[in-house]
């Protein structure tokens, strides 16, 4: 979303309350969605639950093409369509719902920095495992990604997506990494998060912030998703306080769904 549009949206958004029929769109939950999209979607859902804003989840096969930025998930609230966690946080802030108001300047800087750490390392690692590890790409990512489409479109779209992701990896310098190095990066990232969390219930002590939602979204999805190798989840399990953190958030915000 462009900046001018963003400013416009936040002006209008402030006037309207959060509607009851807000909808979050994501790819099909059982057959299609991939680890990275599922993690981002869970992060947004967690964030909205933390704010106490109701949202219905709608699964569409073409969610990726419906989104204004080409990335899932996105929310449809009243007359607005907003995609990805960062803009959604700004959007809810304009409506008067914010989780990070109680932080001071230094804490806010740290929160932003850790959110970028999750984007930069966890999300990139998820994409790498999905599309650059050949066995995962062949057995899981390509068939799932293309499941709603018929032959030959399914192959074309899946290979196109894989090609895009690989080019991106090359551009950001991850092209030459081995799977082992990527796992090592994930470990490093988890250790950093674990250190920052310490023994607190949330990253900034008693109150949840968007950082907690983002970290929970990614860690919980990695822990509960079956991949060809469980190495990614193993790396997270080594940090016991992160496991406790995930359980605690799941218990607090997803009690009704936890069957």
């Amino acid at each position, binding site marked *: 979303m*462009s*900046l*001018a549009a963003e400013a416009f949206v936040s002006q209008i958004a402030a006037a309207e309350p959060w509607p009851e029929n807000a909808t979050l769109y994501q790819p099909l939950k059982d057959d299609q969605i991939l680890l990275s999209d599922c993690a981002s979607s869970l992060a947004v859902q967690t964030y909205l639950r933390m704010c106490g804003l109701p949202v219905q989840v709608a699964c569409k096969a073409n969610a990726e093409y419906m989104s204004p*930025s*080409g*990335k899932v998930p996105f929310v449809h609230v009243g007359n607005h369509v907003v995609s990805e966690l960062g803009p959604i946080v700004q959007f809810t802030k304009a409506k008067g719902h914010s989780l990070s108001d109680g932080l001071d*300047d*230094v804490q*806010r*800087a*740290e929160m*932003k*920095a*850790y959110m*970028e*750490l999750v*984007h*930069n*390392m966890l999300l990139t690692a998820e994409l790498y495992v999905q599309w650059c590890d050949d066995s995962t790409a062949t057995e899981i990512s390509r068939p799932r990604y293309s499941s709603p489409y018929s032959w030959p479109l399914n192959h074309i779209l899946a290979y196109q997506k894989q090609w895009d992701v690989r*080019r*991106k990896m090359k*551009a*950001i*310098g991850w092209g030459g990494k081995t799977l082992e190095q990527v796992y090592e990066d994930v470990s*490093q*990232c988890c*250790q*950093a*998060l674990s*250190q*920052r969390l*310490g023994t607190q219930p949330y990253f900034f002590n008693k109150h949840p912030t968007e950082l907690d939602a983002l970290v929970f979204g990614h860690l919980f999805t990695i822990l509960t998703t079956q991949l060809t190798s469980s190495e990614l989840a193993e790396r997270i399990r080594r940090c016991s306080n992160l496991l406790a953190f995930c359980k605690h958030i799941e218990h607090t915000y997803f009690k009704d769904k936890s069957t």
Partner: protein
Amino acid sequence: MSAPDELFCWEGDWGLPSVDTDCLTILAYAKFAGAPLKVHKISNPWRSPSGSLPALRTSKGEVLSRPSDIIIHLRKQKYNADYDLSAREGADTLAFTSLLEEKLLPALMYTFWMECKNYVEVTRRWYAEHMPFPLSLFLPGRMQAGQLERLSLARGHNALEAGEELEKELYHDAVECMNLLSQRLGANKFFFGDSPSSLDAFVFGHLAPLLKAKLPNGKLQQQLKSLDNLTHFCSNILLLYFPTDGRENLSHKASSQAEGGDFDHVPNKRRKQILSALVAVGAMLAYALFTGILSIQHVHQRAIESSPGLPADEEEEEEED
């Protein structure tokens, strides 16, 4: 460890030990950690062992080119600037490095490589002037293409056009990032107390070129200059760890200024002007003579004498057609 590791990096200018962000980061880290590197400051990337700059050739003959790999290598050699940091501070380092990469780096790439005026007058000119002749013709353009591709892939849009909107978005993120850094630094000398760490090297590497380059379009630069503690942080590191580069630059600032103004200041200006005018006139005359626009006829003395009635000034005749 017989021979020291060799580091190949871009030459310095503008009062910096190197003009490139990655090179600056590594140079600063090596200084902070006290690593004895043999530094080759070159301006021909083809002379580096990896074909790009920066590159580190270790004593075992390995070649590393990613800054994070080089820093990890130095750390393994016991040159660790982060030794005193607590685990929590180590985690903060990782987080703020990600913040720099995601938010500030795209805007820097835009300012130096995509913004037309800056690219033509500063970036391309600097690289073209410093590279040897045949490389200077195509390498700056190729470097730009690489940067643009990286920027567009990182943003996830395939079509990327330089324009108000893109600039605003990137600068918005970058200004936010600089504000966050400034708030995190506060009144400290370095990010984690009194001694510098790898995070200081990364921040210095990203901010110093923006601070010191003389950019014609300096919107982002202005923003940085308004954050006093970050500006002071950069100049402090330059003063403490790279005193020679700063001084060298001051001393040959005068000469470089004269060189820099090559287009306006030519020695023996008047003589060259007259010479070139003469050459031009000569060439035109030669052309006119050879193609027959102008012809010179020699009228014999005898012919003039035999016909005294004719005026003597018909010796030269101009025919135009």
